[in-house]
């Protein structure tokens, strides 16, 4: 049967309309921007797809940075002052798209790039950055693997993946009374989560815990019951989840459904994300989480002030509590601004050298990179959900409250 032409046209038009709704491919100024008194940074962010929530928080962090820098007049480059203008593109949470967008920025003459959300996207981008002689400050790709490839043009403001779950284990060992004796790690199977799980296992063994076999499940799974059924008979006293939000929520929900009652849960990325409390309600109480930043962090800078001031600014602009996804994005943008000012140039090679030599305090942490590009001296914080709020409980010197243990909501 022959299809009338209008039928095919209707379909194609609908598809085209839909695709156009997916993401805007706006143009950016590049060198022309600098000539016009504007400093362009390129940012591929995950505004749609499975990382859209975290990607949106990242964009908020970049946006606040732009506002703060421009409120102070802009970025001083030699004898000029340039207005900061971040060009956004939606990478739809896909690493290959994130990498292509870096290429696209390069074609537009934009050499200075702010990282996308997550290790997979960032790792894909880092290879392109190196090839194009661009420079990237990575706000949220923590996988140690990104920095083990000898790249010279990617700098991460955050602590490496191996510290995420390990910091929770250290906090429990130091603060929990009675001290639990057995730990099991449940992990998603993406690179970041596996690296974080390895870090937790090593820390737990070093601290004398009995460590059960790590159980893995697919990244993004909303059903982790198989892993929970496997560990149920062993009655582990602590369950550590090396996970993102969806898997983290599933661990707490399904443990309750299956009658698994450890003394406490600790999870890497999930608990500091605002959605963790809204989706779990009272069941979120007592869960520990690791955070790159909390509002009790020490340190200050000329643009954002202290961590408490940063929290107030995010509240005022975006009407929610500041999360570490916001803060690490703002810190990445700040590192670029400080390096460009120090270099007195927007030329990629000079900015790269200035980043490599950067050693500056900030509301986030000291911004200082080792030879691989990692901010390896930056400490992690451990938070606990108490009465629906995030409370920093470790390290002790920046704690806002005491660890409640056993941590399981009753």
């Amino acid at each position, binding site marked *: *049967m022959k*299809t009338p032409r*209008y*039928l*095919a046209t*209707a*379909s*194609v038009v*609908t*598809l*085209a*309309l*839909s*695709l156009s*709704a*997916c993401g805007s491919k706006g143009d950016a100024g590049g060198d022309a921007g600098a000539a016009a008194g504007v400093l362009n940074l390129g940012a591929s962010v995950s*505004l*749609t*797809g*499975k990382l*859209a*929530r975290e*990607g*949106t928080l990242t964009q908020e962090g970049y946006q606040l940075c732009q506002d703060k820098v421009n409120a102070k007049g802009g970025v001083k480059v030699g004898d000029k002052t340039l207005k900061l203008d971040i060009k956004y593109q939606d990478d739809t*949470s896909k690493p290959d798209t994130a990498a292509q967008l870096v290429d696209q920025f390069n074609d537009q003459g934009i050499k200075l790039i702010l990282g996308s959300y997550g290790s997979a996207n960032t790792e894909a981008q880092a290879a392109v950055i190196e090839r194009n002689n661009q420079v990237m400050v990575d706000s949220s790709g923590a996988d140690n693997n990104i920095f083990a490839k000898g790249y010279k043009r990617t700098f991460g403001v955050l602590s490496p993946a191996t510290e995420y779950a390990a910091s929770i284990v250290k906090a429990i060992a130091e603060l929990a009374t009675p001290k639990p004796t057995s730990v099991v790690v449940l992990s998603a*199977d993406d690179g970041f989560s596996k690296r974080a799980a390895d870090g937790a296992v090593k820390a737990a063994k070093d601290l004398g815990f009995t460590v059960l076999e790590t*159980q*893995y*499940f*697919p990244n993004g799974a*909303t*059903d*982790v*019951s*198989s*892993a929970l*059924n*496997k560990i*149920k*008979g062993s009655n582990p006293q602590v369950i550590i989840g090396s996970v993102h*939000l*969806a898997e983290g*929520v*599933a661990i707490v*929900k399904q443990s*309750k*459904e*299956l*009658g698994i009652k450890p003394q406490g849960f600790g999870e890497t990325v999930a608990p500091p994300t*605002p*959605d963790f409390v*809204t*989706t*779990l*309600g009272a*069941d979120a109480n007592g869960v520990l989480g690791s955070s790159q930043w909390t509002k009790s962090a020490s340190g200050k800078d000329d643009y954002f002030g202290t961590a408490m001031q940063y929290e107030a600014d995010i509240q005022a602009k975006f009407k929610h509590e500041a999360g570490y996804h916001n803060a690490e994005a703002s810190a990445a943008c700040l590192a670029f601004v400080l390096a460009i000012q120090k270099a007195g140039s927007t030329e990629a090679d000079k900015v790269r050298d200035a980043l490599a030599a950067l050693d500056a305090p900030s509301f986030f942490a000291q911004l200082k990179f080792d030879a691989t590009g990692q901010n390896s001296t930056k400490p992690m914080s451990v938070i606990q959900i108490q009465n629906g709020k995030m409370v920093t409980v470790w390290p002790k010197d920046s704690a806002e409250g005491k660890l409640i243990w056993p941590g399981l909501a009753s």
Partner: protein
Amino acid sequence: MSGFFQATIYGLLQGGLLALVAVGFSLVWGVMNVVNLSHGAFVVLGAYLGWQLHSSLGLDPFLGMILVAAVLFCLGYAVQRLLINLVVNGPIFITLLLTFGLELLLVQGMNIVFTANYQSITTSYAGNAVIVGDIQLPLGRLLAFALAVVITVALVRVMSRTRVGMSIMATGMDRGAARLMGIRARHVYAVTFGLATALAGMAGTMVGVVDTFNPAAAGRFTLLSFVIAVLGGLGNMYGALVGGMLMGLVQAWGGYFLPGTWVNALAFLLLVVVLIFRPSGLVGKAFYSARLEV
């Protein structure tokens, strides 16, 4: 051994939820020969509507899902009459394109209206469990499973005992002959699509009760529905239920005995094996995949 029984029970319950998600997809494919790639988006839309009714009006999701079903029936009816009907006689490639485009529009629309935040319909009872010996039966999943069985049985009775149902079945079997008997195929198709979206909405509300969701989950629900519909087979209302329960069991057993990262590979291996030995699915009717449209 209790671990194995627990995994089996949980897998069956999870399978019931999957069946509920897939039953509408299977119905539309079986009757209209349309592979509806926007099905997952309707599931997520149902979850959002159920969540909105719960959070704004305090309506229990098991009551709210009736309203959700009514709203999505109307939406599905309109979408079929005004949009899909334009291409329903075309080759499957065209309907795939159209429903794929519709899926993108719906997902982007939900991103704009509801944001990408994860949501869940939090009730006081869904996370609790009924304990039988050493086995825990999670209440929310138990209710979703019961609902899947009730809906499937109800669908069978509607299809075999009501005029609307028999019109749907007749149109699915032979559209030309059905037209000659005075059945208005366009209306029947629209009712079928409306029924499917209503069922997707109910499934979405259930998903919201036991899981988390955001707009990005739409693609996963469509893929699951596709696999379950093929596993169970077309032309039999029990197909989705059988396919869903088998999928749930295979995932539970696979995850229990093998490394947990193998579960997705196992699900697709199962699909390949079933298609080798029963190309029309476990309980499907062979003529459905070979019928000619006139």
